[in-house]
């Protein structure tokens, strides 16, 4: 049974969508959302459409949603398996936050990578030592993988 909270959050995502983010619930599982995030302007991800999956565990909202990137992305806080390093998805989660807040935070992570807490050391290293090369690579990946 869908909980009133998940129902309300789902409704609000469709009636009051977030600019640049599309989240649609799976037809068979209300705890599973198919997400698409458009790459923010002024970033190497601009023009790309990044797919992700969002799952709400049974204990939600006492535990955070789980989010995985499905589109390959060259980003210091997102690894090859699509895992995202974001504080509110871990220790800074609070049940006062919502799916919305998570999606917005992921969107802003694309604009503002956190190089101090990288998930992929190699990627972070390149962003630190040669930001131009890193951005060029991120742009190329966006063209290659996020361009549908």
């Amino acid at each position, binding site marked *: 049974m869908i909980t*009133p*909270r998940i129902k*309300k959050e789902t409704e609000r995502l469709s009636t009051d969508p977030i600019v640049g983010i599309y989240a649609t619930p799976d037809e068979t599982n209300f705890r599973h959302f198919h997400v698409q995030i458009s790459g923010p302007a002024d970033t190497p991800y601009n023009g790309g459409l990044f797919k992700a999956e969002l799952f709400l565990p049974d204990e939600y*909202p*006492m535990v955070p949603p789980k989010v995985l990137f499905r589109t390959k992305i060259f980003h210091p806080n997102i690894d090859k398996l699509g895992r995202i390093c974001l504080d509110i998805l871990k220790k*800074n989660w*609070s*049940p*006062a936050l919502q799916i919305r807040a998570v999606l917005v935070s992921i969107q802003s992570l694309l604009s503002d990578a956190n190089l101090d807490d990288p998930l992929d050391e190699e990627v972070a290293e390149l962003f630190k030592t040669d930001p131009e090369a890193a951005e060029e690579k991120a742009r190329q990946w966006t063209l290659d993988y996020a361009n549908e």
Partner: protein
Amino acid sequence: MGNRGTTNANSKRVQQEDVPVLKSHNNLRRDSLCLKKIRGSPGDVYSLNFVFSCTFDCIITIQLCASEFRSAEKDAPTLYFYTPPELENGSFQYKFSKGAIHEFPEKAFTLDFNKYDLEDMTTYKEDEYCPIVITIENQGRNIPQVYRHKCLMLILTKNSRGEYNILIKKQCLLFDKNIFKIEDIYGFEKQDDTGDFGDESTKECIICYTNTKNTVVYPCRHICLCNSCTQVVRMQNSKCPICRLEAEKFITVEIDKQDAEEEVNLYS
């Protein structure tokens, strides 16, 4: 309900208590309280202004440099304040008839800072001394026996530009042979400036989005949870969902659903 928690060495659970919410018949709007400099007056003369509502006719008394006394008499404990008799304008009374929004008349009560010692006006000693006390006392018939009066204890502050400001240090209520200290709780604030209270969501528990919130997290005093979600938070991490501060205790208040949008004060 009935699920009072206990604290013991083996348990990380945080205490939960139930307290009633008393309805106050007088409300002085905190954000309306201010001092206005009177132009053209010699020296530092300020007018004390505030907006206020009362369910009964009442008398407002303003006292300066007041010493606090509490009688410990068992059946009739009281709280009163003494003002030094030689102090000019030290005690002042004003009558109000019942009404929703009263503005305390401009210049009805003025403070001339040349006449007082700044230190006397800016220091506060709990249970002993208070620079400014406003007492609101209900008058007339049909007043519930249990309800008596409310005191606001104020101090002044002076900023670097030499402007005076006024701060509420403490509020007390005499109710049914008890003196209660009033504490504000956070979570029923107006959502916008239209004068309406926010939509349903300000009353709803922020976790289940279903039940009415009725539990205050201490020490941060955020009201955001319902009873059953409080149980879950207590079991899990006992942090306030709003500010993430470690909770010391949870206090469930009885909130009249229809009144939930009114200013809610918690008394303890």
